């Protein structure tokens, strides 16, 4: 171990360019996430937030630039290898398995793990964060409400015991009460030691819990800085908080 790799960011994205056919969705995005941080990536519709996460988890491979995880490039990996390296991705739209029960959904989260006792331990931990899920373990995923599905998606990702959790708009479609609850849980997860990269349109809420933030606009980083600082920045308030 060199001193350099000790201080390397947990996740670093360098000059990421992504294409959908001729559409140039990311035009040189660079950012870092340090171990233990909550970093938020905020921006409006079509800014490239989902594309950035999909590129990191290698669901999208038509990209250039480098993605370093713990100092090593992961651009050559398949999505399942990225997951097993310690990156959990809660995708846009939750994508829980509608035809599997809640328990089966959670077990899928621990797919790479064969230690039954450890799986049981993680399940219990998930249930302490989301007691609602415990009451419904036998229910099919597709029968949950939107908010419950979001909770299941987060709980399922936590079953992987990831080094970093990528969250794509966890507040989407949720009532204010649920939004607050989910943000509390993200903070709790972070306090327990999981690094978080949070993609949000709800900039106000996201900046409220994040340490640092990047503002994405038309596939480029338009602004970056300390979250509290950005929250009080007039330009941000105008452009992304709808308070202008």
């Amino acid at each position, binding site marked *: 171990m060199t001193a350099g790799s000790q201080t390397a960011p947990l996740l670093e994205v360098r000059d990421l360019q992504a294409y959908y056919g001729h559409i140039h969705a990311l035009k040189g995005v660079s950012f870092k996430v340090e171990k233990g941080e909550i970093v938020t990536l905020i921006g409006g519709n079509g800014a490239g937030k989902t594309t950035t996460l999909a590129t990191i*988890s290698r*669901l999208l491979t038509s990209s250039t630039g480098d993605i370093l995880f713990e100092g090593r490039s992961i651009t050559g990996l*398949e*999505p*399942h290898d990225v*997951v*097993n390296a310690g990156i*959990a*991705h809660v*995708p846009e739209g939750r*994508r*829980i*398995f*509608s*035809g*599997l029960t809640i328990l*089966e959904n959670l*077990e*899928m*989260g621990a*797919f*790479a793990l064969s230690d039954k006792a450890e799986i049981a331990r993680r399940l219990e931990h998930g249930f302490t964060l989301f007691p609602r899920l415990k009451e419904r373990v036998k229910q099919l995923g*597709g029968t949950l409400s939107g908010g419950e599905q979001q909770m299941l998606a987060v709980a*399922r990702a936590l079953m*992987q015991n990831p080094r970093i959790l990528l969250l794509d708009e966890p507040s989407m479609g949720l009532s204010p009460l649920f939004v607050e609850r989910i943000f509390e849980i993200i903070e709790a997860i972070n306090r327990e030691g999981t690094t978080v990269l949070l993609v949000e349109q709800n900039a106000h809420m996201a900046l409220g819990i994040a340490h640092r933030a990047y503002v994405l606009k038309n596939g480029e980083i338009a602004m970056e800085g300390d979250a509290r600082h950005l929250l009080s920045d007039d330009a941000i308030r105008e452009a992304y908080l709808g308070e202008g």
Partner: protein
Amino acid sequence: MTYSDILMLLPVTLADGLVLGLVYATIALGYSMVYGVLGLINFAHSEIFMVGAIVSVEVMTYAFVGSDLHPIIQIAVAMVCAATVSGTLAVAAERIAYRPLRIRKAPFLAPLITAIGISLFLQDAVRFIESLFGQFIRPFPSIPFFDQQIPLTANDTISYKSVTILVIAGTMLLTLNYLVQHTKLGKAIRAVALDRKAASLMGVNVDRIIMITFLIGGILAGVAGVLYALQFGRVDPFTGFIPGLKAFTAAVLGGIGSIPGAMLGGVILGILEVLIGTYAPIFTNNVIGTEYKDIFAFGILIIILIFKPTGLLGRSTTEKV
């Protein structure tokens, strides 16, 4: 014919229908599982089945004619050989033909045409190879053991052959059901069928699960080929077509993509076919002979599908948002 004569035919008819139905079900699972994970109708599946049947005939002919080995062991060896060859072929089709198309994001007609191509290729390859050694219509060696009868009802008997097929096919179906419903592999197969991307985000190697699905379907088709050859006593390179079509129909009837559906569809189709084949001539004074059984069987299927378009146990499309 009196009422009681007609009733007396019923147990044998149902037993025959069940035998046929379980063979259809065993083939149908391959169509349904591959459709489940890929949304692809693997039309080459009927030829994978046919190859299994041919392999069993050759094993029985060249390894076991005149052998003292117990016939059940002979069939077991033939089954292992057929399952190996059919399973390998199914995986080869996926690796050589379907996966490259998937990687290149080919529109859905491309793999469909490819499947038909593989199907024709296998028919002709088998015909070519068999022709090198003589006739390409191959008889299954007769084994007196399987013609023995055991009582079914007071008046009827059932052959060892039928019992063997019922036991083997039934065991395969129960094993598969256990595998899919209660093992980690099964959970992964269901997850891939529901959402491939989400499954990969769970750390599942999706290509590997797809390959295993083809392997399972191929193994089942190979075993079904052995049972079919045993039951009907004759196999040729074109044997796969009609049973394949019926198994595909069974998969659609049960709800394509649904595993219990494929089993149910196969059994219903088999029983309907034999029931109609037996009773149509009786009730119509031979105006409608047994040979018209398929028209009625398929007619009833169409009616069922009109009332339940997603198949008996199929997921309704509205559920897949």
